């Protein structure tokens, strides 16, 4: 007994170290993220808004919901971004709005990724009835129109941050779930999984400890896509007046501006900051994904290498396989 234990232990720890920890793959994902200039730019953009949200009280001190002066004032020294139709300070709204908007975006994305990972990996790993049922559920959520369901949900449920995070997660997880399922199905055929199965490891351990770390890139990419979805959809809902109008988010800022007819009187400054913030954050997140894709997708990397070689050799890009002359 004792001997057996001793024999097994070193083997186990040697085997478990690389596989049990998510650190290495996460660090790898971070490495790829910072390895691309596109992704770096995106990362900086997103971080600026995250920091603005975290330090909102020192960047734009004061209550963003307070009436501060005459409505619809253009930007001035007193109000950097002017006032909105309700006489609120647009700059405060804009800075404070990033806090809740990003919280909803990242919160719902985290929830979506968790649901997608659990359901997608289960469906991909098990075959037969489990896969059939889970796959059916995923396809179902994919095909039922998201925004109408969101609208319906928010009409019946009490508006609030938690409600919107859950509603977004329910309507938005399936897309990633399908991608994760497909990836799990292909990883399932790999030798290391077969080895784990043969050595009698429990299925859940194989799924989450052996397979999961091998698809961190996909999970991170899916997570970022989910953040975009979360921010976009929650802003849209709030703009339609379907979120709690007492909260300060970019969406509710736009709702109030529209509600007061800011565009009709030409008060574009009430719209621009919050709307541009959503667009720039979404663009930053898309850049991160785009940059990561460029690095992790061997086809795109190969293409970039070929392009740079061709450029150096001053050969115009053409369809047929080019022959690069040796420089002597």
């Amino acid at each position, binding site marked *: 007994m004792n001997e057996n234990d001793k024999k097994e232990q070193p083997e186990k720890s040697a085997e478990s170290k690389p596989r049990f920890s998510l650190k290495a793959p996460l660090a790898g994902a971070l490495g790829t993220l910072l390895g691309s200039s596109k992704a770096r730019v995106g990362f900086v953009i997103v971080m600026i808004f995250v920091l603005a949200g975290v330090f909102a009280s020192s960047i734009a001190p004061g209550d963003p919901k307070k009436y501060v002066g005459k409505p619809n004032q253009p930007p001035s020294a007193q109000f950097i971004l002017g006032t909105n139709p309700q006489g609120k300070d647009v700059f405060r709204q804009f800075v404070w709005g990033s806090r809740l908007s990003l919280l909803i975006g990242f919160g719902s994305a985290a929830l979506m990724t968790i649901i997608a990972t659990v359901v997608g990996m289960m469906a991909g790993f098990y075959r037969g009835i489990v896969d059939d049922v889970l796959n*059916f559920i995923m*396809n*179902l959520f*994919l*095909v*039922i*129109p*998201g*925004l*109408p*369901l969101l*609208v*319906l*949900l*928010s*009409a*019946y449920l009490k508006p609030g941050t938690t409600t919107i995070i859950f509603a977004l997660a329910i309507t938005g997880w399936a*897309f990633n779930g399908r991608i994760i399922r497909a990836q799990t199905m292909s990883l399932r055929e790999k030798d290391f999984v077969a080895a784990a199965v043969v050595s009698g490891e429990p299925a859940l351990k194989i799924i989450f400890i052996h397979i999961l770390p091998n698809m961190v890139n996909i999970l991170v990419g899916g997570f970022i896509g989910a953040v*975009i979805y979360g921010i*976009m*959809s929650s*802003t*849209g809902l709030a*703009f*339609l*007046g*379907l979120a709690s109008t007492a909260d300060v988010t970019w969406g509710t800022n*736009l709702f109030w501006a*529209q509600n007061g007819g800011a*565009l*009709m009187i*030409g008060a*574009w400054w009430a*719209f621009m900051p919050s*709307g541009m913030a*959503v*667009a*720039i954050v*979404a*663009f930053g997140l*898309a850049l991160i994904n*785009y940059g990561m894709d460029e690095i992790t997708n061997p*086809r795109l990397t190969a*293409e970039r290498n070929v*392009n740079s070689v061709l450029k150096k050799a001053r050969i115009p*890009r053409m*369809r*047929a*396989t080019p022959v690069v002359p040796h420089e002597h």
Partner: protein
Amino acid sequence: MRFILRRLGFYLAALAVAVTINFFLPRLLPGDPAAVILGTQASKLTAENLKAVREALGLSDAPLIQQYVTYLNHLFQGNFGLSYTYFPAPVTKVIANGFIWTLLLGSVSLILSFVLGNLIGIIGSWRRGGVIDSVLPPLLIFIGSFPAFFLALGMLYTFGVKLDVLPISHAYNNRLPQGFNLPFILSIIEHMILPATTSVLLGIGGWALGMRNVMVSVLADDYVTMAEAKGLKQARVMFRYAARNALLPGVTGFGIALGAVLSGQILIETVFSYPGLGFLLINSVNGRDYPLMQGLFMMITVGILAANFFIDILYTWLDPRVRAG
């Protein structure tokens, strides 16, 4: 054939789930749904008001399963109740009206963004590193990053308010006699320009990028090199040989894109007060018109499912491998 039947079965199951969601959502509300729904006016409510709402929602004291059967019965008879906001029009009639406009705006903008996006993708991948390939994709991603309603507001402000060259709301000129005559049709087109352009701008980037990525790998295939080596015309190789095969994943994407297009269109319709299903849906929620809201969700879901089924059929026709499998 078996493939199509299987898909049909799936869509019917999806429809059943949507119907069930529609049935249970109002019943998930704590307390008496009718009272919650009438909410703010609760103090002025008479017992009769409450009863009317309960009837409209198919709520009764009968066991849940019996209510469900009654609800299904009404659905099959096409009975969605009467709309509150457009009282006394039946929900079905209001929806039928909105459906025409959504279908018109949706199909025009979807076809335009599909064709233009794929063209950009094809030409961009053909001339990799050229202007179309290096400038357009990032620009289109950036435009696609705007929330649909914000882009719509921007268009409305620029072309409708500032320049004042295009109408900013509704789908046609009210003062013109309706019917198949030139001025009326022209006014429909004029009213469609802003919402359709917004929708196309939002959607085109996705198509272009998707097409480009598939084209890049198809162009590396031997048969394309062969076609070029034979000295076929560039356009022929590009469209008849490469693009034709690269189009397949895009067609599958069409079904999934429909949902996103529809979401965008709901917001666009609302901004431009375009009298389609999305505009009606938001109005029904704001006006607490629950029968109309439920009917709209049903109708939108049926529409999306039907469109997906149509795409499946189209796909089997385009790709014989699916038929065999």
